[in-house]
């Protein structure tokens, strides 16, 4: 999944959901999750998941992004179902609908709220150094994601994933990742030098209302 695209949608769209203050959306999300956690009704769960999809459509959020993200936890759910004995269809439906509804709500929140705005709101309750680490990671994802694409291309040029030669495949992948790591760490040192010059002291400040 392309984090670039998720970020692009959350920052550039101008729908009513995108314009709603992050605190209000966060409170609504907590409330929805709390209700879904105790809900045993597949109808209610399904309605919430359906609402998430309808809201996404109304806010011009592509379903090609929302739906795959919503469906990802079904992999975890499949493991749970495989490990269960005597599971009824009703229970499976209730759990699946609950998981889809919660994930749909979370993903809709992320697709309509920029990461810096989320981290800025979290900064009111979390210690400064954790919020700073969140901002650094977010920034680094975009700085280095081209590099990981290069790793993917380099792997492709060397024959991609070859199941007949797993050791050679892992070796190629490891060398490419090792090179990428070293390159990224060098970049982080340049970043650190500029932070030092700007007087960084374990905290990043987010200016609300300015995206």
């Amino acid at each position, binding site marked *: 999944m392309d984090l670039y695209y998720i970020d692009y949608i959350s920052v550039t769209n101008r729908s009513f959901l995108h314009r709603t203050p992050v605190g209000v959306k966060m409170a609504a999300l907590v409330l929805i999750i709390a209700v879904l956690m105790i809900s045993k009704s597949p109808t209610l769960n399904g309605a919430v998941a359906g609402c998430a999809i309808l809201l996404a459509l109304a806010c011009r959020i592509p379903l090609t992004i929302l739906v795959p993200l919503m469906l990802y936890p079904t992999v975890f759910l499949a493991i*749970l179902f495989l490990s269960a004995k005597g599971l009824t269809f009703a229970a499976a439906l209730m759990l699946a609908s609950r998981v889809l509804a919660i994930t749909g709500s979370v993903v809709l929140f992320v697709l309509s709220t920029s990461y810096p705005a989320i981290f800025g709101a979290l900064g009111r309750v979390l210690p400064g150094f954790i919020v700073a680490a969140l901002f650094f990671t977010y920034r680094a994802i975009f700085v280095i994601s081209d590099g990981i694409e290069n790793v993917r291309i380099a792997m492709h040029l060397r024959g991609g994933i070859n199941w007949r030669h797993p050791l050679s495949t892992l070796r190629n992948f490891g060398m490419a990742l090792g090179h990428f790591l070293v390159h990224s760490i060098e970049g*982080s040192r340049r970043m650190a030098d500029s*932070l030092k010059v700007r007087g960084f002291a374990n905290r990043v400040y987010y200016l609300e209302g300015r995206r």
Partner: protein
Amino acid sequence: MSHIHLPDGILPLWLWAAGYALVALIISLVWRRGRATAEPRDFALLGVLSAIMVLVMMIEIPPLSFHFNLSVVTGIILGPRLSLIAALIVNVILALIGHGGITVVGWNTLVLSAEMILGYYSFRLLTRLGLSVSRAGFFATVIGLAAGTFLAYDVITAASPWINRVLSSPSSRLGEVLPTGAVSAHLDLERLALIMFGVGAVGWVLEGILSAVILSYISRVYPELVRSGETE
């Protein structure tokens, strides 16, 4: 293992709240309630390595949705104190895009940081015992990931009475009377162990080989990163 493979809505409130509380307590102790500081260089390194973990975890190998973590390699480079923060950051970002649950972030952070920290100390011990960087990297990764899987399995085992209640809740709500001899829905812990440790063991070895290659490469290009380990 890197995550407890449970989505939101399965674990009881007290258990996932306990996960968050435990993480808050450990971070508060390790970082002296936020009074401890780190160099800008450590923050930048933490950001870059957490970002690499997020990006690598998003590269899935078909058809099993299997992904590498680079948790132990990151743990070896960052050291224990920063690993704890990296584990939290990675899990928060992944949970926001549906990869793992929001409610499970606390326990997932503990599982991931256990992998990283145990991997870090195992690597240091094994290199002191005279093993080469690549061999020590391989065994440290296997030890770290195995510990993470055990911890994840233990959390699920502890939660199993409540998970069983969730699995059989629709029948009990409707007052359904089970036929004689029928057993209500429950988690088969033996089957779960088979899935987690069976499939997991293959993953540990694959990630172990990958980590060995990466650490061997880094030790040749940037030896101080894996020699000293601790960046603090």
